[in-house]
């Protein structure tokens, strides 16, 4: 069922050789491209009375016909391989790849994960991940393999360690600090007596201040 990918290479190559080889090995020594050959063939068959049989009489034309047939078969095989080639060789590895590669950052296009990116870098990383997995490495070992080479930056989720403590727990610490300040402020505010009586001195001071304002208003 699984056709090797190399057929993609084989078919076009054999097509080339099918077109060019008869020209080179043509017994009449006709140089030039395939068009020349066809012209020659046509003239040939016209002079001898044109039947299908006569057009295949020269060895060069026979060779061309055979090679073209082979090339056409190979092309059709190639198409068949393209359609039928399973994208997923090992469903388990592909599932692991999908899960793991979406957690890894593409270093070239940093907003994208290794799973999303179509960059050459992401392709290489996926290829190596697949190879490691096929060699029986666990997910953790594959991640280690990449971190050793590219550092923690390749992980979308940074590991908890000394240098990342602030990153992981900073927001929580800020929240706790804010909550503490809030509670302390609220408690202080509650402790403050509401509707406190003003002392005589304060009343007098307030009146003077108000009086000044009125006085200035009068002036204007």
């Amino acid at each position, binding site marked *: 069922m699984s056709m090797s990918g190399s057929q993609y290479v084989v078919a076009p190559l054999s097509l080339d050789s099918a077109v060019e080889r008869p020209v080179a090995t043509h017994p009449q020594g006709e140089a030039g491209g395939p068009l020349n050959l066809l012209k020659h063939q046509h003239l040939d068959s016209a002079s001898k009375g044109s039947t299908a049989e006569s057009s295949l009489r020269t060895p060069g034309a026979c060779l061309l016909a055979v090679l073209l047939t082979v090339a056409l078969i190979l092309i059709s095989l190639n198409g068949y391989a393209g359609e039928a080639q399973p994208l997923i060789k090992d469903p388990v590895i592909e599932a692991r790849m999908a899960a793991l590669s979406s957690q890894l950052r593409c*270093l*070239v296009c940093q907003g994208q994960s290794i799973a999303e990116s179509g960059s050459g*870098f992401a392709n290489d*990383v996926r290829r*190596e991940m697949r190879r490691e997995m096929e060699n029986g490495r666990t997910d953790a070992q594959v991640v280690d393999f990449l971190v*050793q*080479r*590219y550092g923690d930056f390749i992980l979308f989720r940074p590991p908890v360690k000394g240098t990342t403590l602030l990153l992981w727990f900073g927001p929580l610490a800020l929240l706790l600090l804010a909550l503490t300040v809030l509670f302390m402020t609220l408690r202080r505010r509650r402790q403050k007596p509401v509707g406190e009586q003003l002392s005589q001195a304060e009343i007098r001071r307030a009146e003077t201040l108000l009086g000044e304002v009125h006085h200035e208003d009068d002036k204007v």
Partner: protein
Amino acid sequence: MMRHWRYLLPLLVFGVLVVFLGRGLMLDPREVPSPLIDKPAPDFSLSQLHDAAASFSPRDMRGKVWLLNVWASWCVSCRQEHPLMVALSRQKIVPIYGLNYKDKRADALNWLQTLGNPYTLSVFDVDGRVGMDYGVYGVPETYLIDKQGVIRYKQIGPISSEVLKSKILPMVKELQG
């Protein structure tokens, strides 16, 4: 007095924030710090660019300070960096070895012939497998490797003449010393 200080607190917090954000803006997000700094250079054995039958390994360089420059003929920034590498190689301060990365042999050879070859030799990493061991994710990248085979510095992107003068050459001198 205490009361006035309280009103300055938001400004203080804002100041700290500005410093952090400003620092963040100055950093180049493309420069991912390499975990390989001060670690032994990964070993490999690759065929040489000019002679497929001959191979090269970083082990051959023990006892020497050298530069490993990752390049490719398809890489535009390499072209930009190239004159500097050629000039550096003429000065014969430090040998430059090339890691030809995911390239075609003919293209690479042609590139060197046209633009000049600053490399003592280049190795041919056709599928980028060795590049991956070195954490290469863009080209060009350059590694400074010391006598013990330890990576001491990694330049991501083309080397500028400032970086060469202010960072790489002083380090080379110190390591050679």
